C-alpha cells in the first residue's frame, strides 16, 4: 500500500513538469508582446526594449523556463502586469474562494448523487426510480448559470431566504453550491445507478443472500463498495471541472473567485496571472486524481495502476 502510494506520487513529477512547460509556453505561443502591453500603445521602442530586458524576454527559452520554474517552486509566480503586485497575492485569496465553492459543490454532488443513484438502482423501474432519473436528466441538461439565475429569482428575490450575491457567511454559499453541484449530482446519480445495477446482478450478491445477510447490508456493504470505483472516478473529474468551470456561477452570484480572475486576466492579457491560475488548476486537478487513484486501492486491493 505505502509502496503503491509512493510510486503514484513519484509518477506525478513528470506530469507536473509537463504542465509547467505547457503553462510556460502559453506566454510565448500567444500573439502579442507582453512588453508592448505593459508599456502601452504609444511607448517609445527604447522603453519596450528596457522592459523586455528587465523581464528577461531576450534570454534563450530554456533560461527563461529555468527562471520561471525556480521562481514557481519558491512560491514566486511572477508580477501582475495590471496591478504590478506579486501574482501569488492576487491569485491565492481568489483561489481559496473557488476551492471552497468547488469542495462544497462536490460534496453535495456525491452525497445527493449516491443516495439518488442507490435508491434508483434498488428500486429499478419504480416510480421513485423514474422520478429520480427524470430529475437527473433536468439537472444534467440545465446550464448552471441559468439554474443560478432561477435560484436567485425564487429563493433570494421572491422568498428572501438567502442573499442573492456574495460569498460571506453560511447562508450566502447555499445557492451557488446548489447551482454548481446539481449537474455533478445528476451525473453521479446516473453513474451510481448503472454501476449498482451491474453489481447487484453479480454472483457474489447471490452468495451474500444465501448466507442470510440482510438486504440493507447487502446493498451498502457488498454492493456499494464494488460499485464505487466508477463513481469515484467521475467525482474526481467533476471536481476538476468545477474548479475550472466555476466562472459562470461566480459571475452570476458576483463571487470574486479564481474563475472570474482568470477570465478578466485573459481579456486584459495579464499573462503572469493567467499562467498562475492555469498552473494552480492543473496542479489541483492532478492531485485530486492522485487521491482518486489511491482510493481505488482502498476499494479494490486487486487494482494496481503501477503495472
Amino acid at each position, binding site marked *: 500500500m505505502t509502496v503503491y502510494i509512493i510510486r503514484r506520487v513519484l509518477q506525478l513529477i513528470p506530469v507536473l513538469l509537463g504542465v509547467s512547460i505547457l503553462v510556460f509556453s502559453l506566454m510565448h505561443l500567444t500573439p502579442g508582446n507582453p512588453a508592448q502591453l505593459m508599456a502601452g500603445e504609444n511607448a517609445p521602442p527604447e522603453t519596450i526594449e528596457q522592459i523586455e530586458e528587465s523581464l528577461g524576454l531576450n534570454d534563450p527559452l530554456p533560461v527563461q523556463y529555468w527562471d520561471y520554474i525556480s521562481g514557481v517552486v519558491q512560491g514566486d509566480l511572477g508580477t501582475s502586469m495590471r496591478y504590478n503586485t506579486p501574482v501569488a497575492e492576487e491569485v491565492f485569496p481568489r483561489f481559496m474562494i473557488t476551492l471552497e465553492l468547488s469542495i462544497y459543490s462536490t460534496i453535495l454532488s456525491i452525497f445527493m448523487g449516491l443516495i439518488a443513484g442507490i435508491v434508483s438502482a434498488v428500486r429499478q423501474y419504480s416510480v421513485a426510480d423514474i422520478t429520480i432519473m427524470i430529475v437527473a436528466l433536468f439537472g444534467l441538461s440545465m446550464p448552471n448559470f441559468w439554474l443560478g439565475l432561477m435560484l436567485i429569482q425564487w429563493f433570494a428575490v421572491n422568498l428572501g431566504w438567502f442573499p442573492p450575491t456574495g460569498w460571506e457567511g453560511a447562508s450566502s454559499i447555499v445557492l451557488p453550491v446548489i447551482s454548481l453541484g446539481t449537474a455533478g449530482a445528476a451525473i453521479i446519480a446516473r453513474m451510481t445507478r448503472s454501476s449498482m445495477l451491474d453489481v447487484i446482478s453479480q*454472483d*457474489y450478491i*447471490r452468495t451474500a443472500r444465501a*448466507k442470510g445477510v440482510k438486504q440493507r447490508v447487502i446493498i451498502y456493504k457488498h454492493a456499494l463498495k464494488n460499485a464505487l470505483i466508477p463513481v469515484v472516478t467521475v467525482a474526481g473529474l467533476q471536481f476538476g471541472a468545477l474548479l475550472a468551470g466555476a466562472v459562470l456561477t461566480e459571475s452570476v452570484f458576483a463571487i470574486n473567485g479564481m474563475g472570474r480572475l482568470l477570465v478578466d486576466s485573459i481579456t486584459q492579457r495579464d499573462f503572469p496571472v493567467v499562467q498562475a491560475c492555469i498552473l494552480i488548476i492543473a496542479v489541483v486537478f492532478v492531485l485530486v486524481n492522485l487521491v482518486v487513484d489511491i482510493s481505488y486501492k482502498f*476499494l*479494490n486491493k*486487486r487494482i494496481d495502476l503501477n503495472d
Partner: protein
Amino acid sequence: MSQETILEVKDLRTSFFVEGNEVKAVDGVTFDVPKGKTLGIVGESGSGKSISALSILQLIDSPGKIVGGEINFKGDNLLKYNDNQMRKIRGNQISMIFQEPMTSLNPVYTVGQQLREALKIHRGLGKEAGTEKAVELLELVGIPSPRSRVTQYPFELSGGMRQRVMIAMALACDPELLVADEPTTALDVTIQAQILELLKELQDEFHMSIIMITHDLGVVAETCDYVAVMYCGKVVEYADVNTLFKNPRHPYTVGLLNSLPRSDVDQEELEPIKGTVPAPHEMPKGCRFAPRCPFATDLCHEKLPALEDIGEEEQIRCWIYTDEWDGDPEVKVYEPEQRTSED
C-alpha cells in the same frame, strides 16, 4: 418413504414473467431429500434444475416468482415464511454453493471477512472468535496454511481454492441441508474429483443432506444416493441411484445414459437424443418429451402423464408404465445391455 425426510418439495412452481408472458421454468416439481443422503437433480440446461434449487432458499430474483407448491423443511413450509424467518434459515440450516467459484466470492472483501459474516449473523461470533472459526473451517475443507489465507482476497486464490472457500462458508453454521448447484462444472477434472470427495467426507462427518444439481451423470454416479431426472421444468423419473443406472425407465433417462460413454458395456458409438429441448413458449401440450421420444404415441402427444409411484422408492412420469399405454408393450422392459449386444 421409509426413511426420515429432511426436505419435501411438493408441486413447486416457479415462473418468470417477461413482457406479460409467463414462462414456467419449474412446473410442478416434486421430490424428497432423505436425511443424511444425497439427492441428485439431473437434467439439461433449461430443465429448471437450478431454478428449483434457488427456489428452495427463495433466492429467485424478479421477474421470477414462486407461484405455487410447498417446500417442507423438517415439516415446516418455507414458502409460508416471511423474509426475516427465511434469512434465519439461509446460511444456517440450509446453505448453498454455486457453479461459478470465480465470481461467487465478493472481490473486495477478504476470505476471512466473508467467512466471518455468516458466523456473526447466525452465531453472534465477534471478530476474534470468528477468525478462529474461519481458520478451522478453511482447514476442514483442506486449504493449506489456513491462517494466512484468512487475510487474502479471492483474486489471490485459484478456482478450486475458491470453491473450497465457498464450501467452508456454506458449512460455517453446520447446515442440515447443503444445496450444491453444479459445484464442479467450472473446475477441471482433477479438482472436480477432489471437491466431490471433500463433499462426501464432510457429509459423513456432519450427517448433512445434500442436493446435488448437475448435468453430469458421472457426478451423480459418484456422489448421489437418489436421483431426480428433470425435463422441461418437471421431474420425469425419481429413483435410487442403482436402480436408475441399472434399470432406467423413462425414455429420456435411457436417452441420457445412451449418450454417455460407458466402460461397463460395449458401445459402437454414442447415441444422442434426437431433436432439441422445446422453447419455453412452445411447450407441447402432452408429454414434454413426446416430440423427441422414439416410442411416443398419440396419447403421449395429447395428454401429459402424471408422476406415479411404481416401486418402493421409484416414481415415473410416462404413459408407458400405465395401464393406458397404447403402444408396443415390449418397450416396458428396457435394458441398455440387450440393445448394444445385438450388433
